């Protein structure tokens, strides 16, 4: 179109063909169109929720007129058994959120972002990476991710480049627990809650940090008469359905467990046959455990000795249909200097009552063994010979840390030290999920190149040189997934149910795009569908069937009976030779938390944190409906023991200043009897400060703002409950 002075692009161009007679079509007017459109059929497509947490629930997506209409749980999926949590329902908002990234972005000199094409982004990123690899070697690159079903593709990509530094968020979440179970029983067992008659849950809250199948199983167990005991400084959502809540002093769960062992052993309540056949090192335990009678423990953990005796006896009397829940983040995932040994003690109590691989006890969940790309003629790149920069899995550094998880919060330190020069951040936000954000920001800013792959501009994305927008999970195909293993292995996958709204790509296409410019495209000369079918081949499952069903069970059903552990002895290692060889206590041994509140200072508290059922980490705070629920139910508050609060002249709802050695913030206080007096508790998921996240920005606080940078010496976890704050009325 020519405007004399302006010959402009055509915003709408003719597509060819003749226009339909609109009056005849009956859709020109909006109201007429609505009548026709609203009568359209709804399509139901199975896929997997993959937005905001580790559960990756099997769902059905209902699609009408090319839009998501609703989601509901797939009843066949083990992890959610037909339900969807508030986060899952809320998260579909993000699909239509104007805050989503709509095309690749490049940082400009003045710190803003400018849209660029995918071609330009790939060209410039790979050019810079090639130069960095030439100058500093591939070990100077890292990839930090929230591990999803595509994780093997990421390892393949990084290995093709020669970098061992693929890292998950794990050291801020669960690695102490996972490391402890790996050292003890060779892997992480699941809890057979619904068949259990006696359930102790220590510092885990499946009704807050939601695990849908566990919530259902707990309710079912309770209906069948099981007793549920929650051991937690806070009266959490799970405690609300428990028979008993023990408000333990934070950081002393290990003392509680050691004294339970003391009772079980002294009173010979253990399962001797199981111990003799399936464990090693029980005799060593006898000598150690004598130091920890309930009379000692009650002074350490604030639980009366009578209760410890009773609980230990009750647990053992119900064995083997009794268990201590395997836990997650709360008490011993990544919280304290003693978390690794606490988790070891959980594994050992379960072992001495003989509940492994027993109905109502713990069992190793079945996972399908997927096929490999090699079988399809696609050789794997070699494992890089360079050690992981973070020291994960290296004796003398962090021997129990795993290769696949690494140490996420070491990345900024390694960047500041000049060891890491460039990296990718995928589906995670370390500036908000790592402790000590100022230090984290300084580290990430030191990198020569930072590329974030995300759907929104998080705090970390905002620091990046390039942001590559991943298609929303409903807009993409991902890799086949084995996360739904339980008593029978299941295969699931994320499949595309809608066309992408914006100029975004699935991760697989992003990796392919990068691999071309980096000279490793030969490792990605297949399609996502071909990859998935190769993975499914050994199982005799076709990709077409999986896409139709969403969830397919495979392999044999779990049966009672001990299976050899993936430990050197093939048994449960109560005493660990490997730990001893690494100079680590080979049996759980009491250790005080690293820091403790000052008993002479009325303002001094340990800062605890935990999830609420409507939020996950920092991923969901920007979802309007979820944030509205937080506001409506007045959830964004600092919990404090009522008596302690009143001594500080506080009333419920008062604004307080929270201050640690590294951070300061203001928040309203919630006074409650439901919290141990030595602690305050902050819900996680708030404290977003990215200016690009308009719903969540500057609401609430993040516990990470107060936590210093620590590395547990065994697993390298962040010890995020080793923080003392001072709380004062504003």
């Amino acid at each position, binding site marked *: *179109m020519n*405007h*004399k*002075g*302006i*010959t*402009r*692009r*055509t*915003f*709408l*161009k*003719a*597509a*060819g*063909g*003749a*226009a*339909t007679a*609109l009056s005849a*079509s009956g*859709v*020109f*007017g*909006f*109201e007429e*169109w*609505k009548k026709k*459109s*609203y009568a359209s059929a*709804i399509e139901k497509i199975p896929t997997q929720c993959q937005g905001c947490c580790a559960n990756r629930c099997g769902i059905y997506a209902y699609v*009408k*007129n*090319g*839009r*998501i*209409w*609703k989601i509901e749980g797939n009843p066949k999926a083990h992890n959610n058994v037909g339900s969807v949590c508030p986060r899952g*329902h*809320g998260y*579909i*908002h993000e699909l*239509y*959120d*104007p*805050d989503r990234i*709509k095309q690749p972005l490049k940082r400009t000199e003045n710190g*803003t*972002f*400018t849209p660029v094409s995918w071609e330009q982004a790939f060209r410039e990123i790979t050019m810079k990476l090639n130069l960095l690899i030439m100058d500093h070697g591939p070990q100077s690159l890292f990839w930090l991710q929230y591990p999803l079903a595509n994780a093997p593709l990421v390892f393949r990509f990084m290995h093709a480049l020669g970098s061992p530094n693929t890292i998950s968020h794990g050291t801020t979440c669960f690695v102490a627990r996972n490391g402890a179970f790996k050292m003890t029983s060779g892997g992480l067992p699941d809890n057979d809650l619904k068949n259990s008659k006696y359930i102790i849950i220590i510092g885990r809250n499946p009704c807050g940090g939601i695990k849908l199948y566990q919530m259902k199983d707990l309710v079912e167990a309770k209906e069948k008469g099981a007793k549920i005991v929650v051991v937690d400084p806070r009266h959490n959502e799970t405690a609300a359905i428990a028979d008993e809540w023990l408000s333990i002093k934070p950081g002393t769960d290990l003392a509680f467990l050691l004294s339970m062992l003391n009772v079980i052993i002294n009173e010979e309540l253990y399962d001797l046959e199981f111990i003799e056949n399936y464990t090693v090192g029980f005799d060593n335990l006898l000598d150690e455990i004598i130091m920890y009678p309930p009379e000692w423990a009650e002074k350490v953990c604030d639980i009366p000795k009578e209760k410890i005796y009773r609980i230990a006896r009750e647990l053992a009397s119900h064995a083997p249909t009794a268990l201590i829940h395997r836990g997650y983040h709360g008490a011993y995932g990544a919280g304290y200097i003693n978390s690794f040994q606490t988790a070891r003690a959980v594994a050992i109590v379960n072992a001495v009552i003989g509940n492994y691989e027993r109905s109502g006890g713990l069992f190793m969940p079945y996972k399908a063994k997927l096929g490999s790309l090699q079988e399809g003629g696609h050789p794997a790149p070699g494992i890089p010979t360079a050690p992981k920069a973070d020291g994960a899995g290296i004796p003398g550094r962090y021997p129990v840390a795993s290769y696949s998880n690494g140490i996420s919060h070491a990345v900024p330190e390694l960047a500041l030290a000049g060891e890491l020069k460039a990296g990718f951040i995928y589906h995670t936000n370390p500036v908000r999920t790592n402790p000590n954000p100022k230090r984290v920001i300084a580290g990430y800013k030191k990198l020569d190149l930072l590329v974030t792959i995300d759907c929104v501009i998080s705090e970390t994305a905002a620091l990046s040189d390039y942001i590559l927008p991943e298609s929303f999970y409903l807009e993409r195909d991902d890799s086949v997934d084995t996360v739904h293993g339980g008593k029978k292995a299941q295969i699931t996958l994320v499949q595309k149910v809608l066309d992408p*709204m*914006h*100029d975004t790509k699935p991760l697989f296409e992003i990796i392919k795009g990068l691999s071309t410019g980096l000279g490793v495209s030969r490792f990605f000369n297949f399609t996502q569908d071909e990859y998935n079918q190769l993975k499914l081949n050994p199982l005799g499952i076709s990709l077409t069937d999986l896409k139709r069903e969403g969830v397919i069970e495979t392999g044999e059903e779990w049966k009672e009976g001990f299976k050899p552990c993936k430990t050197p002895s093939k048994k449960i290692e109560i005493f660990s030779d490997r730990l001893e060889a690494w100079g680590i206590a080979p049996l759980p041994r009491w250790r005080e938390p690293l820091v403790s509140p000052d008993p002479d200072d009325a303002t001094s508290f340990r800062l605890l944190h935990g999830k609420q059922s409507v939020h996950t980490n920092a991923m969901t705070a920007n979802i*309007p*409906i979820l944030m509205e629920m937080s506001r409506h139910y007045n959830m964004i508050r600092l919990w404090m023991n009522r008596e302690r609060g009143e001594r500080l002249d506080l009333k419920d709802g008062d604004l307080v200043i929270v201050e640690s050695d590294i951070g300061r913030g203001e928040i309203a206080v919630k006074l409650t009897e439901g919290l141990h007096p030595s602690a305050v508790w902050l819900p996680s998921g708030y404290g977003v400060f990215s*200016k*690009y996240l*308009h719903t969540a920005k500057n609401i609430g606080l993040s516990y990470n703002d107060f936590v210093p940078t620590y590395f547990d010496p065994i697993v390298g976890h962040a010890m995020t409950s080793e923080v003392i704050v001072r709380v004062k009325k504003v």
Partner: protein
Amino acid sequence: MLYSFEVKSEISKLLACLLSPPDREITDALNSNYIFERLSDFFLDNQVRLYFLRDRNFSEEELSDDYYYSFFEKKVSLIESFYKPWTEDRECRSVMAGEKGLLMGDHALHMKALYEMYNLEISFDISTQPDHLVFELDFLSFLYTNYSKREALQFITDHLDWTSDLYSESRKAGISEFYGEVIGTVDFFVENEKAGLDAYN
């Protein structure tokens, strides 16, 4: 004064141009006062203030910064769905039903249907949103050129009834003066057209 549909079409197109990502051609047209003159001819008697278009030395870089600041940094949305309930379909049980502030609402779907009916394709240079104001102004221009006042009035009633919300939003957000004025001009144009077409009807 009654203007021909050809003139209205041109004005609608020019306003679409002003709300698209700025480039050299736009800045040249501004610097030569071409856009000012065309709009001045149309908006008689100082009905709208057009001084912001006149006798200034516009640079592409500056305008791009303003554009980024207004519609990216300040996030003032130029998309119709943002200002309207996502759907009014009672069958929808999703938490999005009835909510404002989202993309790809009913109005976006209707725009897609309209483009399909007219065999039009949207350019992907600006946004993939079919109800972006730039596309809607261009579509109005298309209607003025090719169809009758009835279609134009119907379209304005159905799809351009949110420009005053956009104007309020832009003032509240404190976007750049230039784009704030452009939006004010668009709002005036739309309101004026609606009133004029109604009267003409």
